[in-house]
């Protein structure tokens, strides 16, 4: 890993302190903050494909949903018969003790990170040979198919949904649940950031960029593009799975198409957020996700019933005025701040020539 500069260090420690203090500063907004962390993770990891590798995936929601079901299933299955838990829409009630709850969710999250990554490896091997629109359409289908299939599997509740274990009743503090999920998601966010930041400083990113810019040339230069594409997707799947697992526990109820394999919302949002902030940049998806979340939470309720119209307008505005995202726009306006040197003389002489 490259050396972290001192000024960056101040920025990072500031952000971490803010992150750790946030649930105490804005106690009432814990759930929204948790959502924010999850959204950033999703946008940031989507950016690895869509931004760095040039493979626009609509299928990352598959790993998110998978992670959600896996965490919940493991959390229940470790201590109780899963089939009975979900039977008839979850009529039977089993109660987790505090220890069982946390053990379950811990193991569940580990499983929900590893299995989606493996699935990404397997699926990636099959479909990462597709390029451009074909890949996008194929992954879009993956998410939808997964939702329909999950809606037919009885052991995970099928169409009736899966009620995840309630937070242990022995913990009397009503704020505890919110804090737990916030810190969990914040931890995953930090983990994802450190990892992505590491990738940004590595040869791996250059290879991904090479794939984006000209895959055939990259291949001709001796890069085993398939290998890197698969690994890249597995990294995303790993974090998407974790994010899904946390969200399942937070929401408390998993529905196959509306909560888990929610391609229509989460699946689109993660793409939108990355594009809004500027894909192919480290901070872009983070800024995009933050802005998007604030836009959504702030404006949504004031325009009851019209929010999707507003979202549509937002998308149009982004596409027309910020085609490269906010970061891309800033870069164009203030290139010197991004370390790009412009030869003023050269620029002027070019202008004069015209």
């Amino acid at each position, binding site marked *: 890993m490259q050396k972290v500069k001192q000024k960056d260090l101040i920025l990072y420690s500031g952000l971490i302190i803010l992150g750790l203090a946030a649930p105490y*500063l804005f106690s009432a907004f814990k759930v929204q903050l948790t959502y924010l962390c999850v959204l950033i993770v999703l946008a940031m990891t989507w950016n690895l494909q869509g931004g760095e590798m040039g493979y626009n995936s609509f299928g990352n929601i598959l790993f998110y949903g998978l992670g959600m079901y896996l965490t919940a299933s493991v959390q229940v299955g470790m201590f109780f018969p899963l089939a009975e838990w979900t039977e008839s829409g979850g009529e039977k009630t089993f109660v987790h003790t505090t220890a069982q709850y946390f053990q379950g969710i811990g193991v569940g999250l580990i499983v929900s990170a590893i299995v989606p990554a493996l699935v990404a490896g397997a699926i990636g091997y099959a479909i990462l040979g597709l390029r451009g629109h074909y890949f996008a359409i194929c992954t879009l289908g993956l998410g939808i198919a997964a939702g329909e299939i999950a809606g037919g599997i009885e052991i995970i509740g099928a*169409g009736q949904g899966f009620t995840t274990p309630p*937070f242990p009743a022995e913990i009397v503090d*009503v704020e505890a*649940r919110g804090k737990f999920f916030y810190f969990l998601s914040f931890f995953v966010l930090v983990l994802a950031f450190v990892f992505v930041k590491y990738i940004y400083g590595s040869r791996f990113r250059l290879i991904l960029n090479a794939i984006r810019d000209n895959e055939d040339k990259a291949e001709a230069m001796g890069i085993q593009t398939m290998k890197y594409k698969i690994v890249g997707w597995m990294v995303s799947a790993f974090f998407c799975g974790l994010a899904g697992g946390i*969200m399942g526990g937070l929401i408390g109820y998993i529905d196959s198409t509306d909560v888990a394999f929610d391609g229509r*919302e989460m699946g689109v949002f993660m793409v939108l957020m990355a594009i809004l902030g500027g894909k192919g940049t480290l*901070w872009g998806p983070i800024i995009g996700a933050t802005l998007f979340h604030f836009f959504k939470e702030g404006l949504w309720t004031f325009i009851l019933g019209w929010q999707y119209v507003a979202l549509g307008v937002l998308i149009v505005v982004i596409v027309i005025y910020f085609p490269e995202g906010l970061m891309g726009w800033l870069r164009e306006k203030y290139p010197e701040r991004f370390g790009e040197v412009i030869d003023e003389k050269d620029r002027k002489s070019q202008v004069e020539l015209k």
Partner: protein
Amino acid sequence: MNKIAKLFITFISAITLTLATISSSFAKVEDGMIVLGSAISLTGKYSSNGVHTQNGYNLAVDRINSMGGVKVGGKSYKFEIIYYDDESNPKRAAQLAERLIKQDGVHYMLGPYSSGLTKAIAPVTEKYKIPMVEANGASRSLFTKGYKYLFAVLSPANQYLEVAIDLAVEKNGGKPVKIAQAFEQDAFSQDVRLGILDAAKRTGSKIIIDDKLPKELNDMAATLAKVKATKPDVLVVSGHTKGALTAIRQISEMKVDVPMLAMTHCDAAKLSKQHGKKSEYALCASQWHKNLSYKDKFFGSGKKYDKDFKKEFGYAPPYQSAESSAALLVFKDAFERANSFDRDKVRDALKATEMQTFYGNIKFGPGGQNVAKPMILFQVRCKGDTCENKVVAPTKWASDKFFHPIPPWSERG
């Protein structure tokens, strides 16, 4: 990068400041207002029923407020509802419930539309010990979770069409029948299915088609083709409003002959209006019908409610609206009996509810479900071109005889 970082920090601190100013807490009872919260589906697949629910809530709020409001501790309070749009999405609903409670300071909740969304909200209200009276979450599993703050004014989903199977068996001379069924893959419809499974077991009937329908329901031709080929005695379809509309549209298009057609959500879909004669003979489960003889002092009778609702919103109230209005009556009654805004006292008062409303009797069982009110069945019947819903079961309120079997399409004009 550093300048960008500074920009970013400025941005974050700006948001921080804004949030800090908003997050000052609100009170739930202020200026003589009792503020209730509700996440409701104004957009998305449940939007039509979400609006029925909202209209029901609003009508009751206006009525109660104009008739003196809620009297607690010798003072009169008025109801007010904060609505959010849950977009027919459980994830959003759970988040909004949290928002209503934590940020808007709501201490009493009204339910959302549909079982799935209620399932998502109930853990939240339970955690914060917020009493919720809900009128549209009928899934049986809601009432077996040991929820203490959830009260439902409606009968559980599995009871919706059980009676229809009994009726079919009765018409078949007491012999078991062949059942074909298709249900949307959502919490409510799947619960209706459980009821049918129970009824089939009880009567020894056989289920010959058992299909699942997708959530974005607009085609069930595959199921109907099978029905045409296997000739069951009863066809049961449930999939909210879209399910009812799709079923009638395609049954009439494909001219599927089946002796008995049992459904849910016929009145919410305004079936008799939208499809007229094509929908005739459809048998529908309903929580309420305007002809029932229940009464209360706010809405008078069901017929009066029907009239007032039509005047206000321009269409006949489906049961979703009626039960939603009833939820407000229950809250009012509980507040006055508790004579306090203490949440636990209100909750205890809700638990002890035993009252009659225009919508039916309300008394909560141990799981929070309404145990005092039976389901009813009505059948769409037409005179000339005007079609109406006529109650056919139970016999106490039946205005018409159940017409069986449905004549084949070749004989229907």
